[in-house]
């Protein structure tokens, strides 16, 4: 059971557009104002979590490495849609720890616990 104010659904792959970074900025600011924030990764958003990425190959800023600071920011509720992984033939090998892979029903249940929801 979470009492976090905000849930953010990340649904975009990390590089074509800037949505992942813009979402991260929102998450970090809520956390630094001590407003609880939970992160949900669904659809192509799961690509933000995949291990062994090399953004420097395409001159993209490695904003994903900031994910390792989530613990420092007390962002501890991180949920990944299992179905989105399965459909994309992805293993549960992520570049951060302490994430929870959830089937859609549980994913939805956790999401519904928040007062406000943004999606990027």
């Amino acid at each position, binding site marked *: 059971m979470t009492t976090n104010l905000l849930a953010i659904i990340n649904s975009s792959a990390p590089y074509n557009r800037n949505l992942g970074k813009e979402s991260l900025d929102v998450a970090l600011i809520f956390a630094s104002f001590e407003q609880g924030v939970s992160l949900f990764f669904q659809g192509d958003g799961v690509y933000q979590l995949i291990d062994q990425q090399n953004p420097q190959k395409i001159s993209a800023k490695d904003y994903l490495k900031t994910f390792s600071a989530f613990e420092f920011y007390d962002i501890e509720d991180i949920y990944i*849609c299992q179905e989105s992984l399965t459909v994309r033939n992805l293993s549960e090998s992520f570049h951060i720890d302490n994430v929870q892979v959830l089937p*859609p029903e549980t*994913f*939805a249940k956790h999401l*519904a616990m928040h007062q406000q929801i943004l999606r990027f």
Partner: protein
Amino acid sequence: MSILHLIRSSAFHRSDFEQCLSIAQSNDTIIFCDDGCYNLSHPLTTNLLAQENKLTIKVLQDHAQARAIIAPQTIEGITMEDLVSLTFTHDKVITWQ
């Protein structure tokens, strides 16, 4: 607890509506607006209407009419004022765009 889902993109082009459906609960309401109106004739909607569940679908009347879309009688056409009211009769809003 109920969620108002704003669907703003066509499921023929993007997977937002499909992702919404994977988490929508039976007492939620789905609103088609903007290009989301094209979902009125998408198989996802047809399948949803064929099911026995309490998930409600509505469409912004002006947005459908702008696109030469005629909503089936089972789907209520609403105004922007209706949408504002629905915002407050549901616990929260998720925008799928």
